[in-house]
């Protein structure tokens, strides 16, 4: 198991190098000259000498491969450069907003996992019942609805029309501000988890060991929740890692809709200001979270199913 975790951890290194390289090339080569861009927008008409000085000061006069290596070297120590606009450290800017994003994302994930698994399990156990049909229709709607539209509709109904919840913002972190954004963000993942749980559960219910459990005279609830669910959850765990990607990019949209002061909002604001170091930092940070969670998912998977370890 330790060997497996170590090996899986080592695989992370080339992936993160690839991610930083692609992001770096996008932000520093495809986008054009960063210094000129900055100057265009801010101090138009600056003389050549100042531009050269600035370029030297920010290390932009060096060849790109050198710049990239220095960028990666700094990134490893947690230094992702400074914002062009506020001169604030990118990591500091992200960390200031990380708690809000974590709160939103984790609530959505938790809700998605609990409601999705419960609904999927019951739907499978009561196949073709009204509950099953209703769950599957709701799940289909959940995977088809655009987050921003769901968010705006909820805002219109619950905040504007019925005045039950605050329309947007963070308040002082009260729960009532969290409800709508977390629900909007969780719609997709809840739906996907419900669908996967149901189809996986249907497969497991038919297997021999479940029949055996039944023929032993165990109650149906015990058969489903104690015996069947454990195995049925294996594909759900895998899909959870993939779905996290949707939640991370969904957070960008949700935070924009609800004016939520998280990292996603920081990303959209920074794009608007063409503050590329921040954009670059957020993209790499989100990719890192995604990679780490998928690593954790793989480890959990190998722990549950020993066959994986020996592949």
């Amino acid at each position, binding site marked *: 198991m330790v060997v497996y975790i170590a090996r899986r951890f080592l695989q992370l290194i*080339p*992936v993160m190098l*690839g*991610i930083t390289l*692609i*992001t770096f090339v*996008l*932000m520093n080569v*495809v*986008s054009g000259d960063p210094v000129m861009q900055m100057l265009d927008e801010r101090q138009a008409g600056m003389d050549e000498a100042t531009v050269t000085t600035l370029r030297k000061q920010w290390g932009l006069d060096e060849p790109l491969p050198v710049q990239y290596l220095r960028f990666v070297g700094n990134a490893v120590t947690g230094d992702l450069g400074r914002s062009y606009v506020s001169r604030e450290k990118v990591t500091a800017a992200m960390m200031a907003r990380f708690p809000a994003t974590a709160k939103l994302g984790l609530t959505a994930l938790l809700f998605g996992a609990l409601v999705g698994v419960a609904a999927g399990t019951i739907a499978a156990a009561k196949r073709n019942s009204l509950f099953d049909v209703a769950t599957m229709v709701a799940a*289909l*709607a959940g*995977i*088809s*609805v*655009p*987050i*921003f*539209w769901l968010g*705006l*509709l909820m*805002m*219109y109904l619950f905040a*504007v029309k019925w005045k039950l919840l605050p329309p947007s913002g963070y308040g002082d972190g009260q729960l009532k501000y969290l409800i709508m954004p977390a629900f909007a963000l969780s719609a997709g993942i809840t739906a996907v988890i419900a669908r996967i749980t149901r189809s996986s559960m249907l497969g497991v219910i038919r297997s021999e060991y479940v029949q055996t459990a039944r023929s032993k005279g165990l109650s149906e609830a015990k058969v489903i929740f104690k015996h069947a669910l454990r195995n049925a959850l294996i594909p759900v765990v895998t899909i959870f890692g993939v779905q*996290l*990607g*949707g939640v*991370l*990019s*969904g957070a*960008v*949209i949700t935070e*924009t*809709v609800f004016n939520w002061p998280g990292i996603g909002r920081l*990303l*959209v604001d920074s*794009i*608007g200001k063409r503050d*590329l170091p921040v*954009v670059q930092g957020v*993209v790499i940070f*989100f*990719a890192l*979270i*995604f*990679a780490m969670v998928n690593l954790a998912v793989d480890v959990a998977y190998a722990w549950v199913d020993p066959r994986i370890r020996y592949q």
Partner: protein
Amino acid sequence: MSALAKMNAKREETSVGGRSLHAAAWRRLRRMPAPMAGLTILLIMAMIAILAPLLTPYHPIKDANVMNSLTAPGNQFLLGSDHAGRDVLSRLIYGARISLTVGLVVQGIAVLVGTTLGLLAGYFGGWVDDVITGLTTVLQAFPGLLFAIAVMSVLGPGLYNVFLALGLVGWPTVSRLVRGEVLALREREFVQGAHALGANHTRVMWKHLLPNCMGPIIVVVTMGIASAILSEASLSFLGLGTQPPQPSWGAMLAGGRDSIWEAPWLTVYPGIAIFMTILALNLLGDGLRDALDPRLK
């Protein structure tokens, strides 16, 4: 001998028990009400998009009149008007053109690039496979829409950049799928038979391997169109995609966002359009998956 081998190869590739796999799949699909409903919605939408100039009461961009700004739905404007006094219905109808084009073009790019690279990776293996698989792994390590957001932030908004960004995001899915299928098919008898008959690499890849991957590709592409349309709407909503005054559903929604209090129709109707399209594609995709691979059901 060679004629017999050829016949066998041909038969194993495309048919089971004398019936073409795709014809059998179509027969199964036709009996499923939900996917057929999805298909019908899509066909109607495609007709609406094609016939847009004949169906729209107003021009989606030019017929602007501030005097008509934010008129509620009624006789003059069936679904109301926007800030510039343009007809929401006409803009929605033209928006179908943008959405469907995005879906088709993006998946066109994804299939072209993804199939080619997936075939190469699966067929040749070795360093070719290492390079292509490495690239797909890294691109898929970006969570969801984030890579497209990053690309758009650099390229700047616009429909062509949307094609490019979403095509870049879409091809690894197709490539991985095709690679996996090819790996499974590569050693099968009909492929070896084709080799024995002297078929070159290109012929084996495109004439023998690819047709056998079509089923899963069709499913992935159907779902991919849905995700491309949703992504374009999301990018446009964030202000990174299609730009106003182009009638993109996502951009229309974003434009109506701040007037949700006094003009909810600006948000509600474009949302319904996106939702219905994605729903129809998901219905069809689910049905295609079940029809093309009955084992999964």
